[in-house]
């Protein structure tokens, strides 16, 4: 883990040198969030896992307590199941969220071509993989899903599919997409540059729920054809 400066009120922890950076980032973020919600790190408001990093953000102007952060990192450095103690984040043993998908997306043929598969193989590979929410961003409730447990399908081929060369100005809510090794479900209509495999009816985002997102960092996800 490397520490990269991010001003007086934040710090970026970088795990890009590790074998599976997203897993290390998710694990450290879960432990820091658990410590934060337990009353440690009083000026820290947000711990944001991403592809290879974790941003620790304190109240603007209050200054990040580097000493306290290091103490917490040391204290929690014993490997633990992902998310233990973090109420927003499901533990590794949790059942996957099951998302029903109508696999009728406009990019199925393009994905099959790019992956060197046929359309049925694309769908089967997507369905048979158990995914995990590595991190969130782009829009509220938008989770970046990475393969956690591959199924019998051609996952490497599916993961080789890049983003679309042109972004769509509007992707409908519930669109199920893949790009650059990730899968995602659009929580609401928005622009988007990922390949659309299908549609789901799942309501991923509800500001009146706690937490407001169905997918939270660490959750397992499985797609089911409907």
């Amino acid at each position, binding site marked *: 883990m490397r520490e990269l400066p991010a*001003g007086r009120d934040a710090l970026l922890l970088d795990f890009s040198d590790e074998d599976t950076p997203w897993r290390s980032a998710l694990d450290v973020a879960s432990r820091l969030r658990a410590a934060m919600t337990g009353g440690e790190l009083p000026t820290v408001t947000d711990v944001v896992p991403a592809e290879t990093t974790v941003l620790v953000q304190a109240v603007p102007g209050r200054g990040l307590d580097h000493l306290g952060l290091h103490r917490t990192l040391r204290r929690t450095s014993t490997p633990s199941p992902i998310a233990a103690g973090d109420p*927003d984040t499901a533990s590794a043993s949790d059942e996957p969220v099951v998302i029903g998908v109508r696999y009728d997306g406009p990019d199925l043929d393009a994905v099959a071509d790019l992956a060197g598969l046929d359309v049925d193989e694309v769908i089967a590979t997507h369905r048979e993989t158990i995914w995990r929410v590595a*991190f969130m961003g782009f829009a*509220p409730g938008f989770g970046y899903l990475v393969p956690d447990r591959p199924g019998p399908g051609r996952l490497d081929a599916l993961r080789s599919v890049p983003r679309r060369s042109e972004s769509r100005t509007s992707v409908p809510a519930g669109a199920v997409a893949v790009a650059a090794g990730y899968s995602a479900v659009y929580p609401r209509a928005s622009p988007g540059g990922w390949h659309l495999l299908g549609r789901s009816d799942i309501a991923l985002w509800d500001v009146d729920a706690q937490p407001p997102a169905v997918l939270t960092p660490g959750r397992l996800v499985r797609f089911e054809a409907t």
Partner: protein
Amino acid sequence: MTRPSGAHPQHLDVLATGALSTVQDLGRPGYAHLGVPLSGAADRGALRLANRLVGNPEGAAGVEVTLGGLSVTVAGDLLMVVTGAPCAVLVDGRPTGPGAAFVVRDGQTVSLGTPTSQLRTYLAVRGGIDVPSVLGSRSTDTLSELGPAPLAVGDRVAVGSERDAWPSTTEAPGTMTSVTEDVVALHAEPGPRAQALIDPGVLYDGLWTVNPSSNRVGVRLDRIDADGALPETRSDGGTVASEGVALGSVQIPPSGQPVVFLADHPVTGGYPVAAVLTADSVDRAAQLVPGQRVRLHR
């Protein structure tokens, strides 16, 4: 946002909004890991000052007015104050000063002129603005479209009961002097991906000017003609893996024209962040007017 009258005896009726008037508090921290930006007042210091001058908790909601033009009629006798970008403050056409709390009587109209400098003015009312809270905040987030819609003519907004003890002072001593320097100084600390630039020092050389496309998400900086080079990213550093973005981050897209992220900044970004402004400088950046000149200091 419209409430049945009578339910809230104290309220504001919006007669004019200017370019953009939104309800803002100190934002919705704690949800960034779910993709929710901080949002809140772009100039957090100005909102906190306004709240202190009317005896509110610092995080009570007020109205953020971009380039003036807000006009409201009040129901009930209220204590109000205007901070941030200094502008004419009229109560039924009679001038009162910014930076000092004033009493507005039931039925009177408060109007804000165009700021004489800076961009964003804050109107606070004792008790705070009471619109429905979304994820713990009454802020309008223009990027994620969370919170109430921007104020519109005809809206009725309730005044809340978020009051502390009466303030010991209702006037801001010396804090309302406007930022009128020829060149606004913004202080930056190192950012996580400064090394992605061939020469990070280029950021701190010469002057920048504020691009008119700046908004609550970010301030876009252009070079003044021939005044200096644009920062260039290394051949392998133009994009970085998606990563968390701190408030005040100075992101360098491939064009080399920096973007300073303000309140409604995205949670993660994909271009290198070469510097991060201090909190005070984020507030100053939020007050920059298009065309104004800026120098970054480290």
